[in-house]
């Protein structure tokens, strides 16, 4: 039961504004050609999530907590600041995605939805507990499975889909192709997922008995979650690519389900975007409060009354309404998503490198330290993250527009 819940949570947590928009753009512009990028990023994420969960279950430390304790506040202030900036941008993008979904569903401009969405998110965090939010978001988030059904109904050719899993060079738009690779990695390996997952494990008081659950949740949950992202890409490749539509706005992406579900497709897209973005906004809102609270030694928990951890609540309150302001002034949600995904990749080495140190520290992991395979994977991820961080901004300039 716990494994099943974990998997459901992971599926819902995986699909958010970044994965939806990058998969839509990748499928519309390059057909199936970028499926490999999702598969690669998801494989890396499975390892990182498993390690974050193992760290929490064995040491009772979240990732941010362990980095501060092991490497000192002097070092931690750098990734802490970087993660807070990225989380804030991604939070704004998620709120923007939810607002745009409401624009699609109601016809009222997305700017008008910024404050109501922010207020609803704040109320959910203020009143809810970690378990209630996690389960509510997960169950509602299963609506994203409509992309899986659509992908099956559209009958893509197995050979074409299979070829997409083999990395290949683009025939045109090379900067745009590589920028989308960077964005897909940024959307998939979002640093907030690692800290949020370890914070959740600490909130739910995981012990070493939960290590099997942790491994299965990371493997199956992230695996199925990435399948949903791949299905978004496949549906976009089947519907928008042949028509020559490049997705620059959610208004263009909104038609993607209308071939598989002629009369429900539009509504399904709007509701899926709304639920997934709102759910992700709750998770990132929580994480944005977890990270500084854990780093500065404040009380932190979503399971206690706001009066008992006032600074934790103050941080998510300020973040949510600050992020809503960006939407209120009319920042384009899809442009913001594109920018924040590139910025995520930029800070990835700062987040992943300390994990390598901590996961090999006997004081934290005892006999559950990383083996050679896990270390090799982290080293590859760090290398990949450095390369992507170096090219992210030049590619954003050349291919992001």
């Amino acid at each position: 039961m716990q494994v099943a819940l974990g998997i459901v949570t992971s599926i819902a947590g995986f699909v958010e504004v970044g994965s939806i928009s990058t998969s839509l753009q990748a499928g519309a512009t390059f057909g199936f050609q970028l499926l490999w990028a999702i598969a690669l990023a998801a494989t890396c994420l499975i390892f990182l999530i498993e390690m974050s969960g193992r760290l929490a279950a064995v040491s009772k430390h979240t990732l941010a907590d362990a980095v501060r304790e092991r490497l000192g506040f002097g070092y931690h202030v750098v990734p802490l600041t970087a993660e807070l900036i990225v989380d804030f941008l991604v939070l704004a993008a998620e709120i923007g995605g939810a607002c745009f979904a409401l624009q699609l569903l109601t016809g009222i401009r997305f700017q008008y939805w910024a404050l109501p969405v922010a207020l609803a998110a704040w109320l959910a965090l203020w009143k809810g507990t970690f378990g209630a939010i996690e389960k509510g978001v997960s169950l509602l988030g299963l609506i994203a499975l409509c992309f899986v059904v659509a992908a099956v109904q559209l009958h893509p050719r197995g050979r074409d889909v299979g070829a997409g899993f083999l990395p290949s060079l683009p025939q045109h738009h090379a900067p745009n192709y590589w920028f989308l690779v960077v964005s897909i990695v940024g959307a998939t390996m979002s640093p907030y997922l690692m800290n949020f997952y370890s914070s959740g494990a600490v909130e739910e008081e995981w012990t070493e008995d939960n290590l099997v659950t942790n491994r299965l949740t990371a493997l199956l949950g992230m695996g199925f979650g990435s399948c949903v992202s791949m299905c978004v890409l496949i549906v976009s490749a089947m519907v928008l690519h042949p028509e020559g539509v490049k997705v620059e706005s959610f208004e263009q992406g909104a038609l993607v389900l209308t071939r598989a579900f002629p009369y429900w497709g539009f509504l399904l897209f709007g509701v899926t975007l709304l639920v997934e973005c709102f759910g992700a906004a709750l998770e990132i809102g929580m994480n944005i409060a977890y990270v500084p609270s854990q780093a500065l030694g404040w009380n932190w928990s979503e399971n206690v009354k706001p009066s008992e951890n006032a600074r934790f609540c103050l941080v998510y309150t300020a973040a949510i309404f600050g992020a809503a302001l960006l939407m209120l002034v009319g920042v384009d949600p899809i442009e913001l998503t594109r920018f924040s995904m590139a910025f995520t990749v930029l800070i990835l080495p700062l987040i992943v490198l300390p994990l390598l140190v901590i996961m090999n520290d006997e004081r934290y992991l005892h006999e559950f330290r990383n083996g050679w395979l896990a270390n090799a994977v982290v080293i590859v991820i760090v290398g990949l993250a450095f390369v992507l961080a170096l090219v992210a901004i030049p590619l954003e300039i050349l291919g992001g527009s």
Partner: protein
Amino acid sequence: MLAACALACASPQQKLARSVEDAASWAASARLVAAAWAANKVPTAYAKSALESARGRLQRQRESLMNSVRELPAEHVATAVGLISRAESAVENMESAVARRDRPRLIHEYEPLPELERRLRALLQAARGSS
């Protein structure tokens, strides 16, 4: 800001290709939105807003090409601007048809779009070939 920087870094042929490709993409989007609205698959408010966005983007591409007329081959620019203007005008007529809830008129208005898209793509190939 990044988009402006990207445009400044691009060669004249790349600018032409990018504008023409974006215009073809927005024309195709407008056609899909119109077809979906005509088949009663999407709400009117969405169709109006999406067509307005498409017309705005087409207009932006046309103006961008007209502002770069000195750097680009005059013949290509004139052809592209002409095609984009026709697409813009077709989308404007489609907007009016949606506002009047006139489905038969809308279908008539988007009929020229596939041919305009085809010609924009042919121009794109030519621009890419000469870059």
